[in-house]
């Protein structure tokens, strides 16, 4: 990550007149030495209108995670105005002014919490200074509230709106030391606050990339090589050109991307059809006949991988990831040894709003509208692929995105739209919309994986050794992107004799982050296997885990992998985990309730994205199906829940997302081609399958962290463990409907 140098370390404030009166206060917050030093150069601005209303910029985009509401809430509270006085605007892409604007990894709250507070507090401080000077009274005698400064002793009041121009002339306070509110005085933070776009959502106003409209706009579809990296040999282009409404057919040769995932900074080979309307383009596409040259990735298939993985699992790992003590010797002397093989499939993201982007190209310049988690990356990718300077590419992130889940961190739809717009030329805007089949078949997938576990217990039922041979993807001892197993993965550091090793298979299709990347699969295999170990130990799972977690307080290396250049958030803390485990046990009545035969509870916990989460799931096993009755969740995401109404919703959504994945989702390959295509064979959870989810938070004195992701990983193992408790059958591969006897 790019850190700006010394000259802008000083925090300063710029004031400028705003059309229509009022004043714009632009804060360029200090850089490397900023209070939390988590961001290079975070800025945010507050616009104060003479009528004492406030426009607060949301620096980052909303993909359904609620930050367009929660970030301005933080500023508004420290500014000491009422939420009803605030209007939120989405900031344009301007990383100089706003710092990193990408969203993902549940990082938006942890890396902006402190900075946004300081932005609000600095603005308030300058307004207070202006009032103190005007009334010639000490600042300490002034109080604020609802956008009004009051001097009680002389019974004088002034609104922020009246003070705005004087405030702008004040020297900006030092952001590192600007006085922040005592959290007990928060009026907006911590209060359930409705999404700022909700009134527009319920009346169907255009907010999304797919809604972009522009005069003279054309529509495009793009038939990509069915195998990643494949090439076009020939196609019936002339016939397609003559179809109704078709304006242009663009053959894209394809550029192999160089990036992570491999799709980044490249473009797939294919045929783009540009027409007056999307339906015309799509209708023409159905007549398209293409001969493809698949290349080596055309050979990849699930059948081959599964065979190879089983062979590998029997051998020694190709390389070692971590080794503590001597697991092999320990197994020999163990009272009990448990062995099991687990697996999980590739997954697509299937955001509800299909991938799309709109672009125009005129006089060597691009203008692009894209629903994205990372507009800056889209700009960089377009620049690299097209050879156009970044300053000639104007990227507008759209007001909202119809889901992200990591998929929109990748810029490929924006690059494709730009490519097609350049071929069309003349500044004509072209909107590229992917079909659902395009979306499922050309994703950056959550990688599949296979784990062969072995565990040893001593005579007292204590876990003394554990090994994992992970069969994954990559080459020459290097994991493919997203396919790694970290040396810090739990229960590392909690078991004295432990080794993780890996063997790799070839993979030609790009992988990418999916909600709670890494953890969303590792949690299932590790926490299910640990439940097997708990059962073998003869202890109740709750007791087994409490004993395991009693070993050590904080795992030194167990922190979530830090995003580029970001400091590591607080790591796995056994005490915090015990806290949520106890809470969820209490709330679910673990071990306290008598349940009818066939009904049982399963539990699992996981640390990811700085969050400690523990779940209990109740299921009832019928003759050939398992019904999920209810889910209890306890989470510890630090000292402050910024917006409780949204935090609860994120947890519920993540839990149901996980259940949907566990029950029926998988992407499989044959001849290098994805075999699924729409919601019939890649099913999402539906209303009739959604159980109630009860959410509790354990408030602890730790820095606030995000909640978009960490509630997902414990779902799959808690469900598998519940199914075991109810039926005696252990499900070791996802999705569960694959396992015989479970039409869940």
């Amino acid at each position: 990550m790019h850190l700006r140098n010394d000259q802008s370390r000083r925090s300063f404030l710029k004031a400028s007149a705003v059309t229509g009166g009022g004043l714009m206060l632009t804060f360029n917050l200090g850089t490397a030495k900023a209070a939390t030093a988590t961001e290079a150069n975070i800025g945010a601005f507050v616009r104060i209108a003479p009528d004492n209303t406030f426009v607060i910029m949301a620096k980052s985009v909303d993909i359904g995670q609620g930050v367009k509401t929660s970030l301005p809430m933080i500023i508004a509270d420290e500014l000491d105005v009422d939420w009803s006085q605030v209007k939120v605007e989405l900031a344009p892409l301007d990383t100089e002014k706003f710092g990193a604007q990408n969203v993902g990894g549940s990082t938006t709250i942890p890396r902006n919490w402190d900075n946004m507070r300081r932005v609000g507090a600095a603005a308030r401080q300058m307004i207070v200074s202006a009032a103190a000077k005007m009334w010639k009274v000490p600042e300490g005698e002034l109080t604020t509230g609802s956008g009004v400064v009051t001097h009680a002793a002389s019974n004088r009041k002034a609104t922020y709106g009246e003070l705005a121009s004087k405030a702008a002339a004040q020297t900006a306070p030092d952001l590192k030391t600007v006085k922040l509110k005592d959290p007990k005085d928060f009026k907006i933070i911590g209060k359930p606050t409705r999404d700022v776009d909700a009134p527009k959502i319920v009346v169907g106003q255009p907010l999304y990339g797919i809604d972009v409209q522009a005069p003279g706009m054309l529509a495009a579809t793009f038939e990509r090589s069915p195998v990643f990296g494949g090439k076009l040999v020939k196609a019936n282009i002339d016939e397609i050109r003559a179809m109704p409404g078709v304006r242009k057919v663009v053959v894209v040769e394809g550029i192999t991307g160089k990036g992570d995932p491999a799709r980044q900074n490249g473009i797939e080979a294919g045929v783009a059809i540009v027409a007056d309307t999307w339906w015309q383009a799509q209708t023409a596409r159905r007549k398209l006949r293409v001969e493809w040259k698949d290349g080596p990735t055309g050979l990849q298939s699930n059948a081959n991988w599964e065979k190879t993985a089983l062979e590998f699992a029997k051998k020694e790992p190709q390389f070692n990831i971590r080794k503590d003590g001597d697991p092999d010797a320990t197994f020999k002397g163990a009272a009990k040894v448990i062995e099991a093989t687990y697996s999980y499939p590739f997954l697509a993201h299937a955001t509800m709003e299909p991938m799309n982007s709109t672009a125009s190209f005129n006089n060597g310049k691009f203008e692009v509208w894209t629903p994205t988690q990372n507009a800056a990356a889209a700009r960089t990718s377009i620049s690299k692929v097209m050879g156009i300077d970044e300053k000639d590419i104007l990227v507008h992130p759209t007001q909202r995105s119809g889901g992200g889940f990591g998929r929109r961190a990748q810029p490929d739809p924006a690059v494709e739209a730009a490519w097609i717009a350049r071929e069309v030329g003349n500044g004509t805007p072209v909107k590229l919309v992917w079909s659902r089949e395009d979306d499922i078949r050309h994703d950056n997938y959550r990688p599949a994986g296979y784990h062969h576990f072995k565990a040893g217990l001593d005579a007292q039922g204590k876990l003394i050794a554990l090994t994992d041979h992970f069969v994954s993807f990559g080459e020459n001892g290097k994991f493919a992107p997203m396919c790694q197993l970290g040396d810090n993965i739990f229960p590392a550091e909690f078991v004295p004799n432990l080794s993780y090793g890996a063997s790799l298979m070839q993979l030609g299709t790009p992988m990418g982050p999916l909600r709670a990347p890494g953890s969303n699969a590792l949690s299932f295999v590790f926490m299910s296997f640990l439940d097997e170990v708990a059962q073998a130990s003869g202890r109740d799972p709750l007791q087994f885990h409490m004993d395991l977690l009693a070993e050590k307080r904080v795992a030194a290396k167990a922190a979530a992998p830090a995003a580029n250049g970001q400091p590591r958030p607080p790591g796995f803390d056994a005490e915090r985990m015990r806290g949520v485990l106890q809470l969820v046990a209490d709330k679910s009545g673990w071990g306290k309730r008598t349940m009818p035969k066939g009904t049982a509870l399963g539990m699992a916990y996981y640390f990811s994205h700085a969050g400690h989460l523990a779940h209990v799931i109740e299921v009832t096993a019928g003759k050939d199906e398992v019904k999920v009755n209810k889910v209890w969740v306890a989470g510890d995401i630090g000292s402050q829940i910024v917006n409780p109404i949204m935090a609860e919703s994120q947890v519920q959504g993540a839990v149901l997302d996980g259940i949907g994945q566990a029950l029926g989702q998988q992407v499989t390959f044959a001849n290098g081609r994805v075999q699924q295509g729409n919601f019939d064979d890649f099913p999402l959870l539906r209303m009739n399958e959604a159980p109630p989810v009860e959410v509790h938070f354990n408030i602890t004195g730790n820095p606030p962290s995000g909640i978009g992701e960490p509630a997902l990983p414990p779902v799959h193992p808690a469900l598998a463990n519940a199914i075991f408790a109810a039926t005696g059958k252990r499900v070791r591969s996802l999705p569960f409907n694959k396992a015989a006897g479970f039409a869940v």
Partner: protein
Amino acid sequence: MAYTLTVNGTSRTVDVDPSTPLLWVLRDQMSLVGTKFGCGVGMCGACTVHVNGQAVKSCSMPVSAVGEQPITTIEALSENPIGKRLQEAWLDVDVAQCGYCQAGQLMAATALLSKVPQPSDADIDTHMSGNLCRCATYIRIRKAIKQAAGVAEKKEG
């Protein structure tokens, strides 16, 4: 081919191929983009509109099949008293996450309450299961429907 449709009380003529789904007529010809594209095959409900008061997946209805039946889209839902009540409940409960599916959810929920004013959980399951929400806001959708219908929430646990 020219078709005259009555959409949100206004009659409008479009010239499109008879196979064109109503969804794309609304979005591309009439700029009514509140109705969303999600799957194109009738599996997600993002495109739900009312045709003659019935919830219909507009991606799967060719324009040639509409005839004279009146169409209502999310843009005019608040003119329907049930729709309006549901929109208010949606805001009160703060149902949406990304919000993309919610136009379809509201159209489907309005059709449900028009038929079954006091729906049971089973009614909600039956009528709302054709509408996917990738963010999985189902718990709040259920709550908002019950709130708008004045039905008490079942006590859980």
